[in-house]
């Protein structure tokens, strides 16, 4: 029979991680259980985080929100501070599964599961979130854009776990969007997702821009060449065409069961064009 540790205190969870390896961490279970149901062997030892209420807080600071790793998508969707300061995270959370999954799946799980199709991840990348990691050795912070080291690989050591997410607030002068393209509105894994955050002045000049794209590379990526091609310029049809072309060249999609390379490349270009056009017309 499997041994499941269910600590109620974070310090206890760190001790368990330090003492009983190998150990599989389970939070909401919405990804792991799918694997176990389809025949993947259930590990002998698991660490069940579900009772760690310490990781369910959302705290507001002057420039950022501190979001506990165990916050569910429903919690994010309903929280007034997240709705006000991170509306694109709410938009992303709403596209995940449906009510049953949103009530159970967690932001920390979305991050640690490390799928390039994780729906909240482009938002975290576009907003330069910082991941707080804990273990018996203490806490450390890693920029989200450095968190993944390859396909489904993270910087987490065996005895570490994600504890909180530090998410900079969207500023009033910033315009941000989250786009997801999938087969249907609910219950669909994305073919392409994009999160854009930009400061655009009254003359339609893009002062600052951050673009993150999901499902088009081994990890969620920031398309920094495309950002550079847009930054400092005034939005017009020529810039929209340049941005589309740069984006299509910069993404590195593959063909898999959900979509193909050509489609993903085209949609990525279309999405950045859509964002710029929406702001040009606004």
């Amino acid at each position, binding site marked *: 029979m499997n041994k*499941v540790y269910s600590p109620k205190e974070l310090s206890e969870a760190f001790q368990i991680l330090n003492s009983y390896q190998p150990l599989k961490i389970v939070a909401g279970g919405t990804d792991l259980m799918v694997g176990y149901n*389809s025949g993947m062997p259930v590990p002998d030892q698991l660490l069940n985080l579900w009772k760690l209420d310490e990781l369910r807080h959302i705290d507001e600071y002057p420039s950022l929100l501190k979001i506990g790793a165990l916050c569910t998508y429903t919690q994010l969707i309903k929280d007034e501070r997240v709705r006000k300061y991170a509306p694109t995270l709410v938009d992303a959370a709403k596209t995940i599964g449906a009510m049953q999954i949103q009530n*159970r799946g967690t932001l920390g799980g979305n991050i640690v599961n490390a799928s390039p199709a994780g729906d909240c991840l482009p938002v975290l990348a576009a907003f330069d979130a910082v991941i707080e990691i804990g273990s018996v050795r203490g806490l450390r912070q890693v920029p989200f854009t450095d968190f993944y080291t390859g396909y489904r690989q993270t910087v987490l050591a065996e005895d570490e776990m994600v504890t909180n997410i530090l998410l900079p607030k969207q500023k009033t002068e910033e315009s941000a969007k989250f786009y997801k393209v999938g087969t249907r509105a609910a219950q669909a894994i994305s073919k392409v997702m994009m999160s854009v955050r930009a400061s655009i002045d009254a003359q339609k000049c893009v002062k600052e821009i951050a673009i993150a794209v999901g499902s088009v590379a081994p990890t969620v990526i920031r398309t920094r060449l495309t950002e550079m091609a847009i930054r400092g310029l005034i939005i017009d049809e020529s810039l929209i065409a340049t941005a589309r072309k740069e984006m299509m060249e910069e993404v590195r999609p593959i063909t898999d069961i959900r979509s193909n390379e050509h489609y993903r490349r085209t949609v990525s270009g279309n999405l950045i064009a859509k964002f710029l056009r929406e702001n040009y017309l606004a």
Partner: protein
Amino acid sequence: MAIKIVVNGQDLEVSVSPMKRLLDVLRQDCYLTGTKEGCGEGECGACSVLVDGEVINSCLVPVCQVEGSEIVTVEGLAENGKLVPVQEAFIKYGAAQCGICIPGMLMAAQALLDSKELSKQTPTRYEIREAIAGNLCRCTGYMKIVDAIEAAALSTLEKK
């Protein structure tokens, strides 16, 4: 491992593997076969039950995570043999065809009717569709299901 759960208001103790799916515990150990398995991967919602008032897919929840929680299955909706408004409405509007999605549909609908945000106004058609977006009906009988939930919401509000 002995795990204590509350199912439909009854205190139970089951002796099972901690990673056993709540769905299997309900069907095999509690003999409550109203909850169905459809896809077994969180896509179809046939196994929906309420855990502490929230609708979840019982195929994705290991029983160790609901220790001490209150679980409501389709068998627990009716009180003393009297159907709740959403069950009455499903019958009246002919919302069940083959029926396998209905226990899950009823639980998702009940979660919507119970939600605090809607305690003073009935949900829109869009909100109803969103509430059952995680419940697939392969007979595609969605129109009558949405009709039934709308009618149940109205009759629930009238009684408040």
